[in-house]
């Protein structure tokens, strides 16, 4: 039966070409769009994890309430014990303390007075420990554009955009002006050891990367940190596992009365991305539904036209005694085959485009000049197992719905009128 229908489809191109083209186009767009959205969201999540919250993030309860303001006055203190405990209890993750801070970077003239100043977004990370995971997490080595990596206390890395703005070169001195965790104005001299391009517009305009100990000294945060962040060792965010670890940790630290007791949050919750990701999921679902609806209407219309064209054929089959249900079923089978063939071609083409953009990406840096979003300048598509099958849902469903609706006309044919209609 399938072979018979397939032969019919191949030999009568007017029956198959137009529907296959529609299904192919729709499926290709869906597959590509899915991979592209997936890539963009992965980029945001990866950048947020690397530079902001990790895959899980431990803060003080008071800090967590105002985390967007980076309230270092509410930071965790005495982190050594806590850090050792989480390293021991949750060995599946890499743990490292971080201090985020803001301030001004001031460049002196020959008299030591202000020549140029610019606002900076600072990151205090463990740069000098032999076993620091930050080199891997921040991917610093490949990001180095000029100069050298920090080798001693007082060395810092600055972003390429900031270096350009302040006309700074490796080897020059600059002074950080910021606030201590107690609110006093604080000043610290640093040596620019290297210039980095992190690939995120918002950071490449203003970032400085300083060793954690130097930041603790500068901001009067001895043994303190804004957060302790954890990363899954495979560098991928596992939401369910993160939720389990978070619940377990928070279950052991239930002292809600102490505003400075630690609390853990997942990447989704700590970064405020949860709503955003849910919105993207919901939009993806809506886009898929709209595609299915549009394709169904087009294929329904194509089915009606085909039905008219095949009016005689269907009539003859009914007149020869083929039952209406069987004719209807064979048309549905035909449409399913068209759906599968179209989906296969569409998925192949869509995956082709997606793989191309997974390797080369599109540079959106010029469009993100003033953006503060944690998103890479080069957005790449990301193909995952679901990308291989997602196109089949609308591809097959739309052809099925289109044929199912247009084929209803078969049941309206009166057998008694068939010979008259066929003018036999």
């Amino acid at each position, binding site marked *: 039966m399938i072979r018979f229908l397939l032969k019919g489809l191949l030999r009568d191109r007017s029956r198959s070409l137009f529907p296959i083209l529609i299904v192919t186009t729709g499926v290709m767009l869906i597959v590509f769009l899915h991979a592209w959205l997936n890539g963009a969201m992965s980029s945001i999540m990866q950048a947020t994890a690397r530079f902001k919250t990790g895959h899980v993030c431990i803060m003080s309860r008071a800090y967590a309430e105002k985390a967007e303001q980076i309230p270092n006055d509410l930071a965790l203190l005495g982190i050594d014990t806590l850090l050792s405990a989480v390293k021991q209890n949750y060995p599946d993750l890499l743990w490292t303390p971080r201090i985020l801070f803001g301030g001004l970077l001031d460049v002196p003239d020959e008299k030591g*007075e202000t020549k140029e100043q610019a606002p900076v977004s600072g990151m205090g990370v463990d740069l000098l420990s032999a076993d620091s995971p930050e080199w891997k997490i921040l991917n610093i080595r490949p990001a180095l554009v000029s100069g050298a990596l920090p080798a001693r206390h007082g060395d810092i890395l600055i972003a390429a955009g900031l270096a350009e703005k302040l006309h700074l070169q490796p080897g020059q001195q600059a*002074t950080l002006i910021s606030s201590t965790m107690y609110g006093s104005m604080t*000043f610290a001299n640093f040596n620019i050891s290297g210039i980095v391009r992190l690939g995120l517009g918002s950071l490449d305009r203003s970032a400085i990367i300083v060793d954690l100990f130097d930041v603790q000294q500068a901001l009067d945060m001895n043994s303190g940190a804004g957060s302790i962040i954890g990363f899954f060792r495979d560098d991928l965010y596992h939401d369910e596992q993160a939720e389990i670890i978070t619940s377990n940790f928070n279950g052991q630290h239930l002292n809600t009365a102490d505003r400075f007791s630690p609390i853990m949050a997942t990447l989704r919750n700590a970064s405020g991305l949860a709503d955003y990701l849910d919105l993207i999921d919901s939009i993806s679902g809506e886009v898929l539904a709209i595609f299915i609806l549009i394709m169904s209407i087009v294929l329904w219309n194509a089915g009606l036209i085909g039905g008219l064209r095949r009016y005689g054929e269907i009539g003859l089959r009914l007149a020869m005694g083929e039952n209406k249900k069987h004719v209807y079923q064979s048309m549905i089978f035909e449409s399913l085959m068209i759906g599968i063939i179209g989906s296969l071609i569409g998925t192949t083409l869509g995956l082709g485009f997606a793989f191309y953009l997974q390797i080369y990406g599109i540079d959106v840096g010029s469009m993100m000049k003033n953006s503060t979003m944690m998103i890479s300048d080069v957005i790449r598509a990301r193909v995952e197992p679901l990308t291989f099958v997602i196109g089949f849902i609308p591809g097959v469903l739309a052809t099925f719905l289109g044929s199912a609706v247009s084929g209803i006309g078969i049941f309206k044919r009166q057998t008694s009128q068939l010979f008259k209609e066929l003018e036999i």
Partner: protein
Amino acid sequence: MNYMLLSIFIFPVGLLWGQTPSGDDILKKVDQNMFSETRIILSRMVIHGERNSRTVEVKSWQRGTSEAFSEFLAPVRDKGTKMLKLQDMLWTYSPTTDRTILISGHMLRQSLMGSDLSYEDMMEDPHLPNLYRASLSSEEIVNGNLCWVLDLSAKKEEIAYYTRRIWVDKKRYVVWKENLYARSGKLLKTMDVRELMEVQNHWIAKSILYKDALKAGEGTEFFVDSIVLDAAIPDYIFSKAALKK
């Protein structure tokens, strides 16, 4: 007859009206009480934070409204930090970095040493009649003293506090209480004077509580430990060279 009755009522009302000074007149008197050509002040700020309280001690030299020099004496971490205000520029010297740095832009809106005051508050022209129009609103008793309540509205657009409400002592022309508002009407800061002292025929606030209404905490207590008015201050104090000395 009607004119007679009218004149009987209008005359005393007119007399009373003549005795009550306008808001702007009261503000000028407040300014006269506050103003002296120079001041040398030794003060303390007790800053109450969420985690702890700490005390900052400062010695300041002020000349007119546009020149001021301050040196931080305590705590140890801030000792030796100096600030110089010349016109609308604020320079600071930090002994740890041996750098003289210009404080500008958004840093001026930052908290002064973690207190409830900002650098912008320090930079403000202290002559309120230059900045605000005053209208007399009512009378109230504050700390047992009968006060005029004045509503001040800004004469200029670019000003940190668009409106203020001040409570002025009717006898001594000193401000007991002050609320500072944004253009939207939102309360930004409050100031409550707790104790006054008389120095060289001027009434000066000796103990003040400043509170940033947008911040949690108990505010910042400010104490004037000693003050000398109209003292001779050498010119070099108000130079950038003095910062490194």
